[in-house]
């Protein structure tokens, strides 16, 4: 059952890898999963999706303020950067790196434009992750 699940995920992940949405870190996560912790990958990417949504919400609030605290904005971006590096969400990570540059420059416009880009890339990868998890669940139920 574990092998079947892995194949399904690998198939899904292959297209995300080939389009540059994910990098080899995601493959490393898949290789870490074994029988002692069969939900490890699902747990990790669920945390990434949940944390990421919360962070994007916070960034929207922060950049909406009349007086933007760029250190606080940077702290939130940094958190998402770390999470994206951990799951191999390459495009999200790279967008966060650009975002941090605008935070350093204290450029509200730069931050707002990059936040728009971040939303697009984050929801793209999180949507695909959620589809992957759904496929895993369906396969698991089909083999019961």
């Amino acid at each position, binding site marked *: 059952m574990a092998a079947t699940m892995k194949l399904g995920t690998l198939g899904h992940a292959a297209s995300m890898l080939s389009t540059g949405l994910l990098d080899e*870190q995601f493959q*490393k*996560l898949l290789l*870490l*999963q*074994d029988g*002692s*912790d069969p939900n*490890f990958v699902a*747990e*990790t990417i669920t*945390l*990434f999706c949940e*944390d990421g949504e919360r962070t994007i919400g916070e960034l929207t609030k922060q950049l909406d303020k009349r007086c933007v605290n760029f250190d606080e904005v940077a*702290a939130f971006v*940094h*958190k998402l*950067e*770390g*999470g994206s*590096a*951990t*799951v191999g969400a390459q495009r999200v990570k790279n967008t966060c790196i650009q975002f941090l540059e605008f935070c350093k420059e204290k450029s509200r416009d730069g931050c707002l434009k990059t936040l728009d880009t971040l939303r697009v890339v984050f929801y793209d990868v999180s949507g695909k992750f959620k589809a992957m998890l759904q496929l895993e669940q369906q396969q698991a139920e089909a083999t019961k």
Partner: protein
Amino acid sequence: MDRRRIRVLLVEDEEIHRVVARVVLRAAGVEVEEAENGAEAVRHVRERVTGGGGAYDLILTDKQMPVMDGLEATRQIRAMGVVTPIVAVSSDSLPSDVQAFIAAGANDFAPKPLTKEKLGHILAKFGLA
């Protein structure tokens, strides 16, 4: 003769990083204890020093954490006279970030995320492999 398992203290506030690091560490056969911020880490270390439970073999710490960050935790652990290797595992990986950790008393630095390869290198470097 049974070899005692390596004891590692993982200091990390974000669950996603704890989940991954925990799996990487357990796959390497080490015993993991966790602290969610620098202050908890200092307390864990102090309890081992005063309680006679035996020192940790390795401490892995993030930098940015609530309550107490990794830099301050490293300083306070060193101030106790603890010589356990401390490795910073952080996304803040500019040369200035690395230098700050080394100046605080850390032995090494690894950029996040923790992987099998990075852990293998760390364990080998400190004779824990």
